[in-house]
């Protein structure tokens, strides 16, 4: 018999990458190459480093085998249990978690597959433990664009902004909403300000999508069919419920007959001993009023804001994908805590003499004579013919680049073919797309249109 783990880790990798359909149409989002590894490797490695031995990886049914075969090659020690879900319906993060609910016996650490960061999980887990919290989540300071020119048509990238309210004294997460939910005014209940008299409202934080959830939250989620995402619905709901009081049980009425057996407070019950211990202790989490510890709340959400120098990116948009690829090797040491970085896979066929030391070459890539590479990622089994050059680009797997091709600032998806003599600058090339001979393109999306229509 094994001991029940304190936390069960879940990595959500069933997202379709709908914010960057140009490059995810033919490939699971979690397998996008980021430096030397596929995207999902980063959160998995982070968990492994933090001491997790098991992880549940939620994937789409049709992508499972592909993901599994890629991950098997990455030499991760953490035991991955795949949990395939059907991709027919458009399932949100909360839906995925709900399907998992009977596998989750402990408190849950939910991580998204698109997180690349050097932050330690210890901080958020410790806050969760310290306050016996219902939810603890981790936020980053926004990294800000570096002025890099993102491939594809020029568009003004407007990041989605969240409003995150944190009680300054206690680090309680007291408000969470998307800024786009409001028109010109943000109205807060006065009771909130009376309870948390000093709230710091951030608008530049990035939600890391690292959530530590108490087990009852999953059970509650299971009873609430309407929530489809964790970030958009479940979390704001629970954060809001902190301000409510449990329904008063009128005397003479049995609790069973209580209409709201689905009431959140029936899930959030604390055991008597914890309450008794807290009441006899002189500890109080706040000062300034005469309320008891935690204001007597059984629902408690906490926020941990990573220090400003922490690196953290959610790879869910094209600009973030582009910047992370430019940064990842530089931050590698901090992200992996000293894992050696092998930029060039040993099993490559490299006849080129001009590959600079910023290039990443994946397994089985074939670089012919008289080719030139600068600051690029070349995916596995990709072949580049002679007299071609690839600068500042990401070339994914099984791509064929013919002779005399000049690629600059491009992202080339799986299986694309670029015929000889092409001059391409700042373009996104969709999967299995063939760029005809001698074409010239700049700042465009080159893809078979019908593929994009899937979304």
């Amino acid at each position: 018999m094994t001991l029940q783990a304190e936390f069960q880790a879940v990595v959500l990798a069933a997202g379709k990458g709908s914010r960057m359909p140009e490059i995810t149409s033919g490939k699971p989002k979690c397998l996008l190459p980021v430096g030397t590894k596929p995207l999902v490797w980063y959160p998995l490695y982070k968990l492994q480093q933090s001491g997790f031995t098991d992880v549940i990886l939620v994937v789409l049914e049709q992508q499972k085998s592909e993901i599994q075969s890629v991950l098997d090659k990455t030499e991760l020690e953490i035991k991955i249990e795949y949990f395939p879900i059907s991709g027919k319906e458009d399932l949100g993060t909360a839906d995925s978690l709900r399907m998992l609910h009977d596998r989750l016996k402990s408190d849950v650490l939910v991580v998204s597959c698109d997180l690349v960061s050097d932050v330690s999980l210890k901080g958020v887990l410790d806050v969760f433990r310290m306050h016996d919290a219902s939810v603890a989540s981790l936020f980053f300071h926004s990294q800000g664009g570096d002025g890099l020119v993102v491939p594809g048509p020029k568009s003004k990238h407007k990041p989605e902004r969240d409003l995150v309210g944190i009680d300054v004294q206690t680090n309680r997460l007291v408000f969470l909403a998307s800024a786009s939910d409001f028109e010109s005014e943000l109205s807060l209940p006065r009771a909130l300000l009376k309870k948390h008299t000093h709230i710091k409202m951030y608008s530049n934080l990035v939600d890391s999508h690292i959530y530590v959830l108490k087990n009852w939250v999953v059970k509650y989620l299971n009873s609430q069919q309407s929530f489809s995402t964790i970030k958009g619905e479940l979390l704001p709901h629970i954060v809001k419920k902190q301000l409510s009081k449990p329904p008063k049980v009128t005397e003479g009425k049995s609790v069973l007959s209580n209409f709201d057996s689905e009431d959140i407070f029936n899930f959030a019950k604390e055991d008597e001993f914890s309450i008794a211990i807290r009441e006899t202790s002189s500890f109080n989490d706040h000062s300034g009023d005469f309320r008891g510890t935690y204001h007597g709340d059984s629902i408690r959400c906490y926020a941990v804001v990573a220090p400003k120098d922490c690196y953290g990116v959610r790879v869910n948009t094209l600009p973030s994908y582009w910047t992370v690829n430019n940064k990842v090797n530089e931050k590698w040491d901090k992200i992996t805590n000293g894992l050696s970085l092998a930029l060039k896979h040993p099993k490559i066929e490299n006849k080129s003499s001009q590959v600079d030391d910023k290039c990443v070459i994946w397994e089985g890539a074939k670089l012919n004579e008289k080719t030139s590479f600068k600051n690029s990622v070349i995916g596995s089994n990709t072949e580049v013919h002679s007299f071609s050059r690839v600068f500042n680009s990401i070339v994914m797997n099984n791509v064929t680049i013919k002779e005399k091709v000049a690629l600059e600032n491009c992202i080339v998806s799986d299986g694309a073919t670029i015929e000889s003599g092409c001059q391409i600058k700042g373009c996104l090339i969709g999967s299995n797309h063939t760029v005809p001979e001698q074409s010239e393109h700049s700042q465009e999306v080159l893809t078979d249109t019908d593929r994009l229509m899937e979304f």
Partner: protein
Amino acid sequence: MSVKTKEVLKDDIVQAVVVADTFGDEFLPISSDIPLALFPLINKPLIDYTLEFLSFGGIEETFLFCCSHTEAIKSHINQGIKDGAEWSLTMKVNVIVSESCHSFGDCLRDLDRKGILRGSFVLLEPGTLSNIKLLPIIRKHNEIANKDKGAAMTLIFQESGIGQMGRDPNEEAVVAVNSSNRILFHRKMGQSRERKIEFPLEIFLDNSSVSLHHNLKDTHIAICSPSVLPLFSDNFDFQTKDDFVKGLLMNEEILGSTVYCHITKGNNYGGAVTDWRMYQAVSRELQNKWIYPLQPSVLRNNIQKNGVIVGKGVHIKDNKKIINSVIGDNVHIGENVQIRDSFIFSNTKINDGVIVTHSVIGPNCEIKSKTKITVGSIIGKGVTLEKEHLIEDTLVQATEPENCDPKDKLDKKAFRLKVTGTEDDLGKILSKKLSRLHIEDNRPEESDDDAFSDSEDEELSYTQSPVPDDTKLFFTEVIDSLTRGFEDELRCEHLILEINSSRYAYNVTVREVNFNVIKAILHMSLRLSTGPQYFSQFVRLLSYFAPVLKNYIRNDDAMLDTLQAVEDVAISNENVNEKWVMFVLKWFYDKDYISEDVILEWSKTLDAKSRFYAQVKPFTDWLEEAEEASSSDED
């Protein structure tokens, strides 16, 4: 001190402005004889504390602005200088008299005309006491003003928890501040019962982080740039400092001015006597040395048991029943007198058996025989109460007010004073109530909290998430639309459009829409006049809405929703016509809105014992028979 000063303002000296008048009626009737500045606070005039604070704080020149009782204040200041009061040693005090000013704003406009202030200065509202070190804050203000040319004012707040006595319930405020301490939003809540506070969204989007403070009390001290006075002159609607702050924040772009704040913590105390409640709170705090080094001039033998402080030459026959009170100089108190949580000013005589609780008795009064004064009553200067009275929550003055009701004459030298102005609105009554002395600690706070827990959910929906009631609202809206449509014979397409827009407004799911629309139409049928014509009218109604029905009943799920709506209406309206269910089902079936399979499937889920099932059964039986017949036909 002077070395420090020179760092702050090169050659200029540090100046302060104190406005001595409140311009309000908070302290009537006592303030009609004594200016607030000379109110005794633990037997020492209030202005002495203020001046002491300024001189401790490093101020070298103070302008004391008086508009009424000017002679009394002037002579008090001159006396102080003559006696070598502590403040007079390091600070020059100039009394400015201007009886034509009627508000705080007028005073500042007058100062602007006089042009006697140079550089930044400290501005104090009436009745301020503090022990805050001002020089570092002035220095900081100047630094900010160097960076931000528009910086007009730095307000000083003190951190103070909710429910603290020194936090004036009339001055509850919410302040939003950015990371460089610039005030972005300042809202004085006062006694308003509003449950929501609306912040402009852009303050959050324009700043990476904003601190929302509800843990502050106003110290009524502000550091002002020279631009403050012209701003007051240019905007003659600014009557108070609050108007100023509000006006500046509202018209930030136009006026090009900004307001900053400084938050003090711990033993830095600041507060002002703005009403009787604050008078009581500040007295308590002073008594308990919160404002150290400001101290009342009390000798050891002035302090008695039970939190009582007495002045010089006080005669008390027995003090067993005197608790938590301040007794002024030369007061005579007779036997068996009860005084509790009250303030007795000097030269007053209280005879045997009088009871005084939570009240203030002005100077030179005489209270005779067994009168009871209670619930925040204020007795003005020189009142004589001859007979036995019960004075409860009343203001009493010695002279006859204009248009005095004979009923309000209590004695030869005692008249009930009615404060003019309507008291009928709730806010005013409340603020009146809370400006009295504390009756009992914490009571108003608690009742406040109860008000919050009442209708929580409504209260909590601060984001636009669907609340359960939305569906209900949607339903009533649909009924309204349809009824109006039917009466005015509007086109059904328009009705559909209307319904769909309400659907988005209330965020209702498709299935709920189906259910509610059908339910609404069926509900309308119940309003038709009963009688032989009933069913023909009903058919007319249903046919009229045929396009609507066709629009919403599109698939099997919608059919099921329709049937559920039928069930819902039939069950919730007991007196519905016996044949109603049968008729409705048949009509929907005949017109092909609902398929046979769905009806049969649905009928199986019904409770076989219910009355409703009994109404449905004949129809399903008929359907089954018909089916058998048709299938046998095929054979």
